[in-house]
């Protein structure tokens, strides 16, 4: 279990997170939503073990498998969680296979380990990036790059026999992707998590993607957890209005049978005016 217990992060008098308690279990997909500045990225950084700004002061605890995250050595931490950054960087023209193989760094030390190569190939295949393997990543499109970096994250968390729980942290993974790739990425990540018993913690902006792919949705508002639970229970008009300042109606999704959230600017009367199904996406 990856958990934040009563976490507060302050910069001066401003609270980025305010007494947040939250846990992510292996095998589940927890999606965090919230307006800009709600504290989503700060929370993800805490879970990743990233450095916060020098002036930030943190209270509370972040634990993995009952042990403080910071107490895990760097190399062990790399096997507990992988992070898909919002905008992956790459300074030199490594090939897609080389980038995916970075995911094996925490595990392997060798030059030509056959098992590593098999895992990298399998991870590339799972991320639908096999055909990109020999290409230099700097020449790929944003969507292709995202898949390659996702493959690296898969390769990093591959070992299902690792004695501790493993988590995949996705920081707005769909931001740079077209519609089809948004769905493909989340489907793939969920499949990987289910197959290999990995927990997913993802930041998403699109409430309908959250509704479709989350086992649990957490709404963060001004640094606090406004609501969390099953998508259908949490993503209700009142919560959305409070969390995002928009008017919303929840409908039945004609394709998935789940919920479909129609939103409009808060000044419009819901269901009249110029609102509409603004962020509806189909599978």
């Amino acid at each position, binding site marked *: 279990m990856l958990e934040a217990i009563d976490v507060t992060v302050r910069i001066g008098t401003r609270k980025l997170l305010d007494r947040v308690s939250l846990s992510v279990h292996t095998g589940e997909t927890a999606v965090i939503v919230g307006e800009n500045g709600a504290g989503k990225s700060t929370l993800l950084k805490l879970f990743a073990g990233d450095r916060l700004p020098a002036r930030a002061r943190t209270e509370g605890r972040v634990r993995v498998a009952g042990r403080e995250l910071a107490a895990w050595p760097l190399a062990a931490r790399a096997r507990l969680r992988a992070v898909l950054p919002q905008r992956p960087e790459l*300074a030199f023209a*490594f090939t897609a296979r080389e980038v995916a193989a*970075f995911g094996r760094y925490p595990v392997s030390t060798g030059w030509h380990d056959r098992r590593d190569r098999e895992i990298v190939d399998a991870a590339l295949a799972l991320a639908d990036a096999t055909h990109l393997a020999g*290409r230099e990543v700097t020449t790929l499109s944003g969507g292709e790059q995202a898949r390659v970096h996702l493959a690296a994250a898969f390769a990093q968390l591959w070992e299902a026999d690792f004695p501790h729980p493993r988590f995949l942290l996705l920081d707005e993974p769909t931001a740079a992707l077209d519609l089809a790739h948004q769905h493909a990425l989340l489907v793939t990540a969920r499949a990987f998590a289910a197959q290999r018993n990995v927990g997913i913690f993802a930041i998403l902006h699109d409430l309908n993607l959250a509704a479709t792919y989350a086992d649990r949705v957490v709404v963060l508002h001004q640094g606090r957890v406004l609501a969390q639970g099953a998508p259908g229970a949490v993503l209700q008009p009142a919560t959305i209005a409070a969390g995002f300042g928009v008017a919303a109606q929840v409908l039945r999704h004609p394709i998935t049978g789940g919920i479909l959230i129609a939103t409009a600017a808060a000044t419009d009367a819901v269901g009249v005016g110029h609102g509409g199904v603004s962020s509806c996406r189909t599978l």
Partner: protein
Amino acid sequence: MTARLAAASRRIPGVAVLVGLTLLLVAVTVLAIGHGAFRIPPADVLRVLVSNTGIDAGDIDARQVAVLNAIRLPRVLLAIVSGAGLAVAGALMQGLFRNPLADPTLIGVSSGGALAAAFVIVLGATWLPGVSKLLGAWTLPLAAFTGALAVTLLVYRIGAAGGFLSLPSVLLAGIALNALAMAGVGLLSYLASDEQLRNLTFWSFGSLGGATWPVLKAVAPLALIATVAGSLLARPLNALALGETQATHIGIDVVAVKRAAILLTALAVGSLVAATGVIGFIGLVAPHAIRLACGPDHRIVLPGAALLGAVLVVLADTLARTLVAPAELPIGILTATLGGPFFLVLLLRRRGQIGL
């Protein structure tokens, strides 16, 4: 499909390049040892080298042995050490700053050496007569080494001021201290007599003319340790291409890598600057050429650059001491003359590939 094959096949296997460069370095070394005012045929070079190890290699001309062992060998060996050290230092800086145009001057190591050298050349005799008398010919190299390390450590300390070694801070501190050091060199040049100015110019363009066994024994261990230890940073430097945060995510101790890369660069370049003055462009060109041929994997780039750098400096030094014989050209002029056009061609033809 064809695009994919083309992209993949553009790279030459790293092992082939390493083997090829090793053979090339051996060949170039034998030729360079034999080349000069007193020519020694390659076969004789090999026989003298063999006889040095104590094996009987038949009749050998005593003059050949004397020239080879006393003059040519230490010089060519210093050229190899310099080329390897400068190239690895360049590759370390490029990997560290994640920029193909980075080089060791960024962390102040060259300008620190230059300032100290200028100080000794211009003011050493008047300000530090006791020290000069005590250290003799070692005054200049020791001062240059100390200056190089001192300025780099200062850059490092400023970069690490926030409790975390921040590369942008290191870069900016390097720029500021480079400017200060260069102002100091400028002031000393202004104060210098004509002869001092000439020494200063010669030093700032580099020369292997000072190569003797004692110099080699003092410099080679430091430079070689830094070169080999630097090559061990290959995997962490690869990871650093992902950025510091993501490198940390895959278990790399980024602060330790940054610290090691900066200190090893200072050690290699500082000791070499002390022995040879400033030799430019090797640190920039050698890693680039390997990256273009074999891709950016530092496990190939670091050793490959070391070999190529050694080949380039051995060649450049051979030209430097023979082109205008019996006079000598400063080697830095040659490396810059060869390196500049190479770099422009690279820039114009392969802009995309070098990440610009």
